């Protein structure tokens, strides 16, 4: 089994889930509580990775961070090397790719929080930010864990985006799913089977955790 690929994959999934927990919360809060009439435009953008072929998403990310784009040039001037085909580039792509898997369970959980509780908190002099951390987060823990776990599990299994943005560099961007593909290409079915079984077991275990924890919170699309 390719332990280096496994290590890269878990590092990537863990970092992706962590970053999504930080940036997903404000996005989900805004999506839930904003009264802006054009909010659905943002909602659709967040949900895009659910339906877009990973290669399409990967292609645009590759172009956006490549040496011909201002973002790509700024990054390579700053760090000294370009973003594509590096772990950081792959992390950025994973974050975008798994965004809906974090934001939608977060938003679904926030939606379930009784508005009257939030209003009661405001009238007690507690600011909107403090109300979020003292009231909304504790009432949404199941949804927050679900979102983090799902984005972790989703990153474990991503293939197309990794191939487009990360390439296949041992120890840097070669993830488990790419490794399985390589093994099959080399007709090493026994090696592929072991790694595939590991991925299956981890993914199933993670989903078991989510569903056992709270079957009510996770919906693929938050009901409005």
């Amino acid at each position: 089994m390719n332990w280096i690929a496994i290590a890269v994959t878990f590092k990537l999934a863990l970092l992706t889930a962590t970053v999504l927990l930080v940036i997903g919360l404000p996005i989900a809060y805004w999506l839930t509580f904003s009264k802006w009439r054009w909010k659905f435009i943002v909602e659709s953008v967040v949900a895009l990775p659910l339906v877009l072929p990973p290669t399409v998403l990967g292609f645009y990310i590759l172009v956006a961070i490549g040496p011909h784009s201002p973002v790509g040039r700024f990054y390579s001037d700053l760090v000294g090397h370009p973003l594509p085909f590096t772990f950081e580039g792959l992390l950025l792509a994973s974050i975008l790719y798994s965004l809906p898997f974090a934001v939608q369970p977060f938003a679904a959980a926030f939606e379930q929080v009784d508005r009257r509780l939030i209003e009661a908190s405001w009238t007690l002099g507690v600011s909107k930010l403090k109300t979020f951390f003292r009231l909304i987060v504790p009432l949404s823990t199941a949804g927050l864990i679900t979102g983090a776990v799902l984005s972790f599990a989703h990153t474990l299994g991503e293939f197309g985006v990794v191939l487009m943005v990360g390439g296949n560099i041992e120890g840097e961007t070669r993830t488990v799913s790419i490794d399985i593909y390589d093994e099959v290409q080399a007709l090493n079915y026994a090696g592929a089977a072991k790694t595939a079984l590991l991925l299956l077991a981890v993914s199933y275990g993670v989903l078991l955790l989510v569903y056992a924890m709270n079957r009510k919170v996770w919906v693929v699309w938050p009901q409005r």
Partner: protein
Amino acid sequence: MAAALTVDCHKTFPGRFTVAAQLTLPLDPPRVLILFGPSGSGKTTLLRCLAGLEWPEEGRIQFASTTWIDAASNIRLSPQARRIGYMPQDYALFPTHTVAGNIEYGLSDLPTEARRERVRELIGLLELQGLEQVKPAQLSGGQQQRVALARAIARRPQLLLLDEPLSALDAPTRAKLCSELRMLLKQLAIPAVVVTHDWAEALTLGDIIAVMSAGQILHVGAPQEVFSRPANAEVAQIVGIETVVQGHVVENDNGLATVLVNGTRLKGLGADVSGTAVYVCIRAEDVLLEQAGSGVTSARNHLSGLVTEMLPQGVLVKVTVDCGFPLRAVITRGAREELGLETGSVVVAAIKAGAVHLVPRSA
């Protein structure tokens, strides 16, 4: 100008209704203002505008020298900045926090010791001892109401806003807690606005009553005035109690109380009449008029008096009889002719004790 809460509030819910209310509540001495009216009359909306949870598109709310909302100059003071105690209808206790946690929720800017002291004080005041570490879901309705009150008054608000404070309770608990709430409001001496659709609550708790219907305030006045001399027919219909007079309980025999109203003795029911000062409330349709000197009936009250006024209302006639106090009755036109009633006639008004409602009032 004395400090006052002035409200001029215009809020439209497209396709539903418009709330357009003007109101002034003098703040010194602190009084309890009742927003009274049927459901859907805009009471809660007005209360939420006061709490800063709804934004009227036109108008102004001024609390003493602070402007809370002024649509014209785009001033919008957040609910956090208003120093209010707001209690929504179903209490909205935080399910993740214990009783003590709920009460101290708004006190996080106090030092720990002062915060603990304040929570202890409130637990004592509202008799919640022993429940400090219990979650709201395990409390009875009455206990939840007291926790919500404690939480609302914990920060020593300058205005208390209570939305149907007793409606979530069963009837016996409600009567008991209503008297307790009245004593608490007097003790706290904080100006309060209380929403209710229950006339007994309005009379018990209120110093001033504002009658609302279809988003408008129709009549503002002292409780007795609003109930016994409603500004117009609509107010009269909303309040539904035509006779409200002050009386004193002189005897209470297991809930059957004898009340003295301006020299006239009446028997009435008041299971929870604590103290002697009461409002005596009688609906006009519960009053039977009979000719003087006629037979014995089961009604406990037979009051003879002079007819002072007769107002025809469709097929009915509204008769006012002076029997030590003005008593209002409605009878049909046919009954009026049979009895030969004219202004100045002597009649006997018969009222069952069960139709004489006694509501405690501040002496």
